[in-house]
């Protein structure tokens, strides 16, 4: 952190978020066509990615032990996590393997601030995140009146904690896998996009009924189960264990530690070899 105080860096982070929010709005407002294309395509994409499960839930009046509206909540929760990722970790921060694989991490290294701060601020793009966040919030709002839940302040607090934990898990997962691009820039350049695709496609699947090995691997190895299924089981009282609310936050801590170690090791490797390739393509997009 150098010779500057923590308070300085916190203030600095807020100023950066403001700058990135403005830049993000400028990108989308470049032209009416661009604006329409992004908003429409992102909305279509987000609706399409959950539509399959939604239609199945409608057709079969729920899925397994999940009622139709519980599935709706699950889909909404997953979309909000997706929306938070897009809002806070866009510009190829979540797709970190692209930055590393394309040699664009050098740009981060010549910024006079801690790398962590760069990564936590540079991806802030609220304008682009909204088309993902809003449908997710809408689904939750639609589902809640049909669910027999006591929506106390405590529940909302746990909802928030789990939401942040789920987002942290997705980010950690992306960084853990993406760090492979430090070592194999070409081969791993699109690894983050594969892992994100996996999460986007599978985030809303109820994992009940899976075998122990498969369910375990989808929670502990490829944590798609933590994106929505595990926290929603607790929030919707499908899981009766009192500790269930804390599974996802605990997993988030574990994944964050793991991702930090992986990224740190990758960074040490990068110090030795640097980037042997560079591409302007998709720069910061």
């Amino acid at each position, binding site marked *: 952190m150098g010779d500057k105080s923590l308070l300085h860096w916190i203030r600095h982070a807020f100023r950066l978020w403001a700058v990135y929010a403005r830049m993000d709005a400028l990108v989308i407002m470049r032209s009416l066509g661009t604006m329409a294309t992004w908003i429409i*395509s992102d909305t279509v994409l987000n609706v*399409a990615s959950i539509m399959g499960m939604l239609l199945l839930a409608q057709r079969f009046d729920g899925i397994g032990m999940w009622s139709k509206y519980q599935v709706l909540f699950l889909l909404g929760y997953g979309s909000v996590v997706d929306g938070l990722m897009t809002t806070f970790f866009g510009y190829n921060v979540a797709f970190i393997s692209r930055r590393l694989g394309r040699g664009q991490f050098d740009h981060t290294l010549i910024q006079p601030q801690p790398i962590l701060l760069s990564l936590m601020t540079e991806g802030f793009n609220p304008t682009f995140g909204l088309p993902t966040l809003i449908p997710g919030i809408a689904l939750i709002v639609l589902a809640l009146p049909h669910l027999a839940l006591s929506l106390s302040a405590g529940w909302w607090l746990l909802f928030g904690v789990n939401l942040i934990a789920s987002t942290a898990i997705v980010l950690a997962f992306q960084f853990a896998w993406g760090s492979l691009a430090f070592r194999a820039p070409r*081969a*791993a350049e699109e690894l983050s996009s594969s*892992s994100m695709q996996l999460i986007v496609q599978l985030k809303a699947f109820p994992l009940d009924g*899976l075998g122990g090995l498969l369910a375990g691997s989808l929670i502990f190895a490829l944590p798609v189960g933590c994106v929505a299924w595990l926290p929603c089981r607790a929030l919707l009282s499908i899981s009766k264990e009192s500790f269930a609310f804390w599974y996802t936050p605990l997993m988030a801590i574990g994944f964050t530690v793991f991702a930090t170690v992986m990224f740190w090791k990758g960074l040490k490797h990068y110090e030795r070899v640097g980037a042997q390739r560079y591409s302007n393509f998709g720069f910061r997009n």
Partner: protein
Amino acid sequence: MRILRGYFKTAAMAASGVLGDDPLFLVNYLMRFLRVALFFSLWRLILHGKGAIAGYTLEMTLTYTLISEVCRDLLECRTWLEMGFWDGSVSTRFLRPMGIFAQFAAEWTGSVAFHLVAFSLPLLLITPLLGINPLPANPQAGLLFALSLVLAVFVGLGLEYLFSGIAIALRLHPYVFNRMRGALGELLSGALLPFAFLPFGLGKAFAYLPFAGQASTPLSIYVGSADAPRLMALQLFWGVTLWIIATQLWNRNREKVIAYGG
């Protein structure tokens, strides 16, 4: 003959190009396997003990999902043509004595061939261990499936050619375009869910769209739930129509094609 040799050499280069990297493509295979395994469990969760629903038993649905994953690369038909234009790498391709689309198609053939051997075949072989029947409904269905698969590639490449042309003509960002196309394509093609399971009569409507020819038609023929001649005729119609429209579009947008991606 020379053109064919060039096509196959390009395909071979693309196939060996997959191996030229570190073995990270295996990670993608793992992800694909997990995805299909999750679908198997989902169907078992939904359809267990329910008998046939809209003509589909649990066993047929599992086979449908399996074959969809086994043939995924063929059914998706993604040549990444528009990416080549966006990142400018297409410029050198103009200097090669082969059509632009043919070059992308050749590369697609090579990588698909590789993934079919390295992922699809092993998946097909191990699924009986997971209690899934990989065989077609009957030998005739298997034969018609093979023909329909060829038509599916015809339709798929036509759609690819057309959509890339649209992306270039409208100067759409390929990232948005790809994600949107991927999500919509999976739903509308029937690769994700058999149309028979869709509510509100959506399945019947989707069956008439060109996307259906990409996945739903060959897959439903494979499991023996389709009127094969009618659907294959529809595939042929869409294939021819798409190619005509796409060729027209590309010819009209030649200048934009060159400028796409700056």
